[in-house]
């Protein structure tokens, strides 16, 4: 037959707890113990409060640009819950919930946005927030590879936005992982926007999930505001990575409820109506309802939690704000494992010209 079929495929979409409260018991079977659901809800709530406070810090001039995470908490948190300590989490900048769950001190995230590199010095297996869009996925591929190289079963799970999938490095990362059989989970947070650019300009295909088909990679679409579904798809993907050393591409559909960052004004380019629709799909609303239906949560606990969050985040802000300022030495001290003589001269004199200085660095 001169015209026959070269390739055929279908991609699944996964949802467990939807915005109307519909809950798929069978898929949820054994997924998250009730106690943990409570913990996860509490964590999300803390993150939401942190987000509000961070926003205010920027508005009051105590912090630089900050990207609100509001509305997207379930995505990275579900992933972080499903991952293990030995795994790497390689994020962009809207994954506070997941990073905090893994043990990144929220103070570090504030420090980062306060223009302080010390915010990137973290002790868990997480890379610093990625400012250059679409570049960090390659590091995840390398980190997963290093683990496989040593015969360990740690994996790398990387996060990025819909916009990031337009960058060449995204493609190269996916292609390396697929062709070299590396244990990586790629999570695209499709939040409808890349600053003011709607997803259709970055991907006009019917789904973002199908980006993975180019590499023969397992792809799946998931409701990113559904904590249960997130845990399930990440756990499946992590198993695929750990046991078969095969990558997975996950499109997590969520929504950026806030502005892109505090430097942005989303009213310039989007309708409030759609934002309102998405507000109703907030991952916390459905989770709280689910807990309340099962008597795992009530208004009293909610009140108590609010107070707890306030105290906790206040402490975080105080620690971040109270840190002694960096010194000019810090510009030089971390450039190389040992400071070279020419740079040391700049460090000691805070001058770029050695005018009037001997070659030994003496002089003015």
């Amino acid at each position, binding site marked *: 037959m001169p015209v026959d079929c070269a390739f055929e495929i279908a991609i699944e979409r996964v949802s467990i707890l939807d915005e109307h409260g519909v809950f798929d018991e069978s898929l949820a079977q054994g997924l998250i113990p009730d106690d943990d659901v409570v913990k996860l809800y509490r964590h999300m709530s803390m993150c939401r409060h942190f987000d509000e406070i961070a926003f205010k810090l920027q508005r009051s001039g105590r912090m630089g640009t900050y990207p609100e995470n509001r509305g997207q908490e379930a995505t990275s948190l579900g992933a972080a819950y499903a991952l293990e300590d030995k795994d790497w989490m390689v994020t962009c900048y809207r994954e506070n919930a997941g990073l905090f769950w893994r043990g990144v001190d929220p103070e570090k995230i504030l420090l980062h946005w306060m223009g302080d590199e010390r915010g990137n010095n973290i002790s868990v297996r997480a890379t610093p927030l990625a400012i250059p869009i679409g570049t960090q996925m390659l590091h995840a591929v390398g980190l997963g590879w290093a683990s496989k190289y040593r015969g360990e079963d740690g994996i790398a799970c990387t996060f990025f936005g819909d916009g990031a999938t337009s960058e060449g490095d995204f493609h190269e990362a996916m292609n390396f992982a697929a062709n070299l059989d590396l244990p990586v989970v790629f999570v695209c947070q499709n939040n409808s926007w890349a600053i003011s650019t709607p997803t259709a300009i970055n991907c006009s295909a019917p789904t973002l999930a199908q980006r993975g088909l180019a590499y023969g990679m397992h792809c799946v679409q998931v409701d990113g505001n559904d904590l249960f579904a997130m845990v399930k798809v990440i756990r499946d993907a992590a198993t695929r990575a750990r046991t078969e050393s095969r990558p997975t591409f996950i499109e997590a559909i969520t929504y950026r409820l806030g502005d892109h960052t505090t430097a942005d004004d989303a009213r310039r380019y989007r309708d409030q109506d759609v934002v309102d629709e998405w507000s109703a799909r907030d991952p916390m609303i459905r989770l709280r309802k689910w807990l309340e239906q099962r008597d795992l949560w009530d208004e009293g606990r909610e009140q108590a939690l609010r107070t707890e969050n306030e105290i906790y985040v206040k402490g975080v802000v105080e620690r971040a704000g109270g840190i002694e300022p960096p010194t000019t030495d810090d*510009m030089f001290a971390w450039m190389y494992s040992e400071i070279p003589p020419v740079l040391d001269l700049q460090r000691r004199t805070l001058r770029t010209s050695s005018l009037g200085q001997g070659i030994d660095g003496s002089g003015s």
Partner: protein
Amino acid sequence: MANLTLVQAINLALSQEMEKDDRVMLMGEDIGINGGVFRVTEGLHERFGSRRVVDTPLAESGIIGTAIGLAMGGLRPVPEIQFEGFLAPAYDQICTHAARMRSRTRAGLTAPLTIRVPVGGGIHAPELHSDSPEAIFTHNPGIKVVMPSSPYDAKGLLTSAIRDPDPVIFFEPKRIYRAFREEVPEDEYTLPIGKARVVREGCEMTMVSWGATVVQCMNAIEASGRDIELIDLRTINPFDMNTVAASVCKTGRAVVVHEAPMSCGIGAELSARIMEQCFLRLEAPVQRVTGFDTIMPYYKLELDYMPDAERIGKAISETAAY
């Protein structure tokens, strides 16, 4: 005449060139409905529509690579790269193709595109939003590099850049986007690419700078009370060595100021050329006041990194005293 900020002057140059020449079109991330993250293209999408003001996918190599194709196809694309740090993913298309197309094809095909890019530090932005890579695109031959230091210059230079048959990187010092206003003619005008401007005449010493640091230089010169000649390079590549050399041969002393790291910066090139051309007139070594040979730090330290009036002042006294 209108009293405009740098942002407004650029916006005006863009709209006038678009009005005049249908081949001129804008493209980039968030430049359309949003008017660009610095609002430089504000109102242009509304006015010229989405054929001529195009929101692109988030991919800098793609933006420059397609702009090269558009230019080879006869248009005059003016792509925006959102911050200078994101020239890096487009480095290959810029240096491998835009800069080489004319010489590679013996002018059979050319790439007259103008890449607009906010540049430099001082606005408390996140990392990679505060760098000064002008030397990189000067060491790579084939691409012109322009950086205005005022609204008036910005309008005239951008108009020239868009009309120039060669590829141009037009660096916009973001620190002075809205820092001051200046009288700018409403009619179109051009300023020659490749020509420096003597901002202030003097005979005691020559100071050379460009972009946002020109303001710091002025402050330092005024504070010094000395008779210093200040040259704003305006075009970094090809730079106007004749103006610089003539001045230094007159004054015998020179200080070069820029934000970029010192090693292999434009300051190095100017310093070397000044020595080559004015050796016997030089009464002191050329002094460089630049960023350090380190990464531009996160913003808590950025002001310690950037040359300021104090550091420039020190260089002035040292050079004078030499």
